[in-house]
């Protein structure tokens, strides 16, 4: 099946300056990432802050320009950013962020906000737009009497439903969600996760789900890519990847999830913190924190290699079959 979204060797470099007159250091926030999402598939992207996962999400939609590599949407190259062709395509790919309050306009009623993408992309007649808004609200579990409310009158979970309804207004083929449930309480989080699950089933929507919450990612995603310092270090089907992580970083990440009943001392506790992306360690970027690193990890950068059907790892110490075709 042709992927709806395909990214090859994406690179994003930020420049940071140390102090006012300090020298400019390039930071490779995303460093050669390749991935593909099939129609109806949900790809999870996990990693810690600074791993480049949010930057990657924006690059996939063409919101952030890439300094290298390319994104293909529906088999064709992504049009140049801010061109009419790109804007038209944006109706087919939408984004949902962590903080719904800042994503919504405080002065517009929620019905107006959900209708806005339809106005912008000139979809249907005014009557059709109104009925589309009503059905979208119903689909995400908002009551008709809430149509005239303003964002501050809703709870956090309801606001996120509004954002999701608005993202779905133009019937997109792809939704990129960046930490969509992280700001919500557990009981409300479960409601929104279930809503996304229902959308997967009923609309055949493809999703890129960016999150640091492994439990939610495992529940919602078909495939998962783990990022560390701008690169994908492991990729595979969600269930298998979390049950049998191969890369030492994924192993530590999975083990750090607090599970009731599991004692604290059975966890892998990594030493130190993720290194500064501006001073990436040589060789494997994880070697400075890796409990099993060997001398060669300091020298050579491990490529993402296929290790089993559907699985790939970027680690010298994981037995590999052949270099991944995508890498």
């Amino acid at each position, binding site marked *: 099946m042709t992927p709806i979204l395909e990214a090859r060797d994406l690179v994003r470099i930020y420049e940071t300056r140390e102090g006012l007159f300090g020298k400019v250091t390039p930071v490779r926030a995303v460093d050669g990432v390749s991935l593909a999402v099939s129609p109806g598939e949900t790809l999870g992207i996990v990693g810690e802050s600074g791993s480049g996962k949010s930057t990657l999400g924006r690059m996939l939609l063409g919101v952030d320009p890439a300094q290298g590599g390319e994104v293909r949407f529906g088999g064709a190259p992504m049009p140049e950013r801010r061109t009419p062709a790109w804007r038209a395509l944006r109706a087919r790919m939408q984004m949902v962020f962590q903080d719904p309050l800042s994503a919504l306009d405080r002065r517009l009623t929620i019905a107006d906000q959900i209708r806005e993408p339809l106005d912008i992309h000139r979809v249907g007649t005014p009557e059709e737009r109104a009925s589309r808004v009503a059905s979208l609200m119903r689909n995400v579990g908002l009551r008709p009497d809430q149509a005239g409310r303003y964002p501050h009158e809703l709870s956090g979970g309801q606001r996120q439903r509004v954002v999701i309804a608005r993202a779905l207004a133009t019937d997109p083929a792809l939704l990129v969600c960046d930490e969509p449930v992280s700001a919500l309480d557990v009981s*409300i989080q479960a409601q929104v996760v279930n809503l996304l699950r229902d959308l997967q089933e009923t609309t055949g929507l493809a999703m890129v789900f960016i999150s640091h919450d492994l439990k939610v990612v495992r529940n919602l995603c078909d495939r998962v890519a783990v990022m560390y310092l701008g690169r994908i270090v492991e990729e595979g089907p969600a269930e298998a990847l979390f049950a049998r992580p191969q890369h030492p970083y994924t192993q530590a990440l999975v083990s750090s999830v607090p599970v009731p009943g599991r004692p604290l001392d059975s966890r892998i506790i990594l030493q130190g913190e993720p290194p500064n992306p501006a001073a990436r360690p040589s060789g494997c970027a994880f070697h400075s924190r890796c409990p099993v690193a060997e001398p060669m990890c300091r020298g050579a950068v491990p490529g993402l290699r296929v290790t089993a059907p559907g699985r790939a790892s970027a680690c010298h110490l994981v037995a590999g079959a052949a270099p991944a075709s995508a890498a």
Partner: protein
Amino acid sequence: MTKLVEIRDLRVAFDGVPVLHGIDLDVAPGEALGLVGESGCGKSVTWLAALGLLPEKARVSGSVVLEHRTLSNAPRSELEQVRGGRIAMIFQDPSSALNPVIRIGRQICEALRLHRGLSGKPAQAEALRLMDMVGIPDPRRRFNLYPHEFSGGQCQRLMIAMALAGEPDLLIADEPTTALDATIQAQILDLLATLRRETGMATVFISHDLGAVAQVCERVCVMYAGRIVEAGPVAQLFEAPRHPYTRGLFDAIPRMDGPRTRLIPIDGTVPDPRALPAGCAFAPRCARAQVFCRTERPELLPQTDGRLLACAYPVPTAPAVPQRERVSQ
């Protein structure tokens, strides 16, 4: 049981709206107590009120006793001795709790001067020892750095070092790992558990993360809408939660093993404190609620198994296997 802190009928109202409805809570010396609940349930307000840290507009009543010393309505000077000295508190966002324009070593030395009367070389030596104790690598070299030169996880370690400066009997950690990455969160939880073992201080761990609480606490109180609804030893509560809300919290968390099925959310939302339901505050969201629950509010009562429970129709005692698994078996 000897008590380090005894809170009785603690009530808080903001602008005439009650948000805490009479909390009774004891902390034993050296104990690790968890306070769990969703935003707005009053878990943080309980301790801010107990330590007199709420703004003027808050109306606080009830009694807080720290080893025969009454803190409620105590004069400011006396409270300031207790805060940071006997009871220390750390918060979710360490970078906003540190002074950005003062070098980190000086901030720790200031805490040592205030609470232990140390100054000069002895203060500096003690500050270095504390930085080493909380796992700041190479403290001597980093003594003169500013807070922004440390990462979020290290700022939280520095906050813990400052909290330890007064050699407190009780450390209150309010969502100390919420803003941190998963692998760093594991480090901080490990640090808190180690420090408690080494210093013998009691810990109150306030969190919405049941998993984290289970790993560092011995006893847990679950709060909902300004009241404690269930309390008991960690193992008991986690193996067989009896309040439908506690049970609901467990069921709502996605699992790291087993089949990937729909989650079981708690329907509806937390009630507005200005318009609390007449009976049990959880009744409108509760699948087990009967007519009684909508008119009468159940008291928090001791049960035969030792836990405290405020529910008229609790979940039957059965192993806490989530519903979806029972169906699949």
